[in-house]
């Protein structure tokens, strides 16, 4: 009985292992994709809270009227800042294409994933260079090697060749992924301070408005107003954690990819370290998603 069970487990591992040894690559790509998307939302929060703060500033002073500048966010018209979102967009595309490539069943899907991957890697490289003036760490020769490896997967998909292609992609793309994740890790918390000051300014003006009007309001109206201020206060306080976590998430994207690289270099497509990283990425994505939802609900 015990022997039968062991044989069943070994057989299942063998069968499923051979059929789709890259399941964790897909899970990794999904978690990375979501975190990159949430990081992009962070930049949107930066822009939106800047506009909301300007509106509060204008509204606080009856002598002021809104002008074009009132409705301009921090990133709008600032090419060098807006390019961060593009880098994240490419990082997300890269993660998605890697996941698609790891699970595609037919050649046409491999070709699509390959095309997306090429676009993402070129974009990642170019935006990083434009942003920092530094080399992203991925050359044209690397892209050619990746294209050859993907092409070798064949019309009838050979799992062994798929693994070789994924290994090549992860190794060649890793320097660019590391560079971009480090840039975001360093930068995102800076923007977090700005967002918190935006939100704190809005809260201050809500309190000032309450001060001016309180005597003329009924008890119920005052309670309702204070509840609004409380909501704003909670968002202001939480925003600091949100951006700190986004910075950590950017760092985790880099460290998870590094763990993936380490594994595939040994021809392993799943390790306990990768599984642990995937779990952490998913947990982070969950908490970030919850804050973002709360922020949207407060508008």
């Amino acid at each position: 009985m015990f022997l039968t069970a062991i044989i069943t487990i070994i057989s299942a591992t063998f069968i499923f292992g051979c059929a789709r040894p890259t399941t964790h690559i897909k899970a990794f790509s999904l978690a990375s994709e979501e975190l990159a998307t949430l990081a992009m939302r962070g930049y949107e929060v930066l822009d939106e809270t800047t506009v909301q703060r300007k509106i509060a500033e204008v509204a606080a002073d009856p002598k002021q009227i809104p002008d074009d500048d009132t409705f301009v966010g921090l990133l709008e018209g600032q090419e060098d800042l807006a390019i961060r979102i593009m880098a994240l967009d490419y990082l997300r595309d890269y993660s998605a294409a890697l996941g698609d490539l790891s699970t595609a069943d037919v050649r046409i899907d491999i070709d699509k994933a390959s095309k997306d991957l090429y676009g993402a890697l070129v974009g990642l490289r170019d935006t990083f260079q434009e942003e920092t003036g530094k080399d992203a760490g991925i050359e044209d020769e690397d892209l050619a090697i990746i294209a050859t490896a993907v092409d070798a997967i064949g019309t009838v998909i050979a799992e062994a060749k798929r693994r070789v292609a994924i290994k090549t992609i992860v190794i060649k793309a890793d320097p660019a992924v590391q560079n971009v994740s480090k840039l975001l890790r360093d930068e995102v918390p800076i923007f977090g301070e700005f967002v918190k000051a935006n939100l704190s300014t809005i809260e201050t003006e809500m309190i000032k408005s309450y001060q001016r009007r309180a005597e003329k309001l009924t008890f119920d109206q005052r309670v309702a107003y204070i509840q609004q201020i409380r909501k704003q206060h909670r968002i202001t306080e939480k925003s600091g954690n949100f951006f700190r976590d986004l910075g950590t998430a950017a760092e985790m994207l880099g460290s998870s990819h590094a763990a993936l690289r380490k594994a595939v270099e040994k021809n392993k497509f799943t390790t306990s370290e990768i599984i642990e990283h995937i779990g952490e990425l998913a947990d982070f994505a969950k908490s970030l998603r919850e804050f973002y939802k709360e922020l949207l609900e407060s508008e």
Partner: protein
Amino acid sequence: METLRSNISDTVNELNKLLKETTDPEEEEKLRKLRGIYFKLWEEVIKQEIDNATQEFKEAIDSLKVARDAAVQAKEDLQKVAEAIDRAVSAAKAVDRIVKLGIDLFA
């Protein structure tokens, strides 16, 4: 390491706290204008590469600290709000010497 952005961030937060306490319309107006100026300076600090090894940088950091201390004291004693505003103006000028935005500062 000290950064201009963090010091500006802390100063804006102190100005906001002081604004909540004060009830003098003229002082409120000045504090709001100053806060707006700090946000503009902050945007420039984010955009520019700031050399933190210069004397101007050190002076700006020191001025911002003085401005914050003055704002904290003014919260306790509202007679000191005018002085806190003066300190915040001086600090904004010190930051502007670095980012060269040429903002029209009152006082």
